[in-house]
């Protein structure tokens, strides 16, 4: 934390916080709609874990960026262009296979990220990571189990998994992007090194896909921009729904 400005470090925690919050909201949208009660509870449990991680990261972000904003300020009072989550997490739930593929691709990344940050020089981030890594281990396990089951399941489940993979894989490039900020952040250990994350993510995901009899799709495009506030169309609708209550009734509590 000595050689990197705190407002730069805040960008890093904000990116992670937004990833967690947006994924949390997407997963929460499964509530009462999952294929079985058991998975309804599983997906919403994971949503709550992600929400908890988001909250801790927003608190840390507010300290680092010096604005003293509350968690609600970050979640409910920012517009689309101010969110810096990756585009992968904002993608719509689709069918169950799509959600599972999104979970596999993202939680494997997140797991690697938390693992790297357990040794962060920012003690608060290290503490958040130490708690989150246990949750992430479970989230990844859940995604892997379902990927194997659906990929190597019926003809229909296999087809749906392949379709979901083709749709979501392009969004994974953004996870490992390097920008102006990343270099400084990585050098000081404040952010995980994208190259290291990729080195963990790629063999793990490919191993799971192989075991699930799924093939890594050939991808010809790599959408990007989430970290700069550029998002896909579906995100605006999601934010509208997520922020509606707070914006209609400012300061509401329950």
């Amino acid at each position, binding site marked *: 934390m000595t050689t990197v400005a705190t407002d730069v470090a805040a960008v890093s925690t904000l990116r992670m916080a937004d990833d967690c919050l947006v994924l949390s909201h997407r997963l929460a949208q499964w509530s*009462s709609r*999952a*294929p*079985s*009660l*058991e*998975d*309804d*509870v*599983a997906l919403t*449990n994971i949503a709550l874990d992600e929400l908890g991680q988001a909250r801790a990261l927003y608190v840390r972000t507010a300290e680092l960026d010096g604005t003293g904003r509350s968690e609600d300020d970050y979640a409910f009072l920012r517009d689309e262009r101010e969110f810096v989550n990756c585009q992968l997490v904002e993608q719509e739930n689709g069918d169950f296979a799509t959600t599972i593929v999104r979970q596999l691709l993202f939680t494997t990344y997140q797991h690697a990220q938390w693992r790297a940050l357990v040794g962060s020089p920012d003690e608060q981030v290290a503490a958040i990571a130490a708690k989150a890594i246990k949750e992430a281990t479970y989230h990844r*396990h*859940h995604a892997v*189990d379902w990927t194997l*089951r659906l990929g190597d399941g019926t003809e229909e489940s296999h087809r749906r998994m392949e379709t979901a993979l083709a749709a979501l894989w392009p969004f994974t490039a953004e996870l490992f992007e390097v920008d102006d900020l990343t270099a400084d952040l990585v050098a000081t250990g404040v952010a995980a090194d994208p190259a290291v994350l990729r080195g963990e993510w790629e063999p793990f995901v490919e191993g799971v896909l192989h075991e699930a009899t799924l093939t890594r799709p050939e991808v010809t495009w790599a959408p990007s921009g989430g970290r700069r506030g550029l998002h896909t169309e579906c995100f605006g609708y999601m934010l509208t729904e997520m922020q509606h209550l707070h914006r209609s009734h400012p300061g509401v509590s329950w």
Partner: protein
Amino acid sequence: MSGDARLPLWEVFVRSRRGLSHNHVGSLHAADAEMALRNARDVFTRRMEGISIWVVPSTAITASSPDEKDAFFDPAGDKAYRHPTFYTIPKDVQQL
């Protein structure tokens, strides 16, 4: 929402803390044992209810029949001497 009827039923036993035995807490649907265990973790231990979980296929359980209730349980009804009522239980013993 009920579980998928195509998935087998499992009985779930949770041990709430060290030293106690596993207690039956309910049942759920899952494709196999590992999934049953994971589902049980989500459905039954979200509020720190346990430190250990067992799952058992419901079909593996042989239950006593309600029709045989009398033959099974009534004979024990009037044998008070089988109960350890002649001992005083120390106050500090929480679980017996």
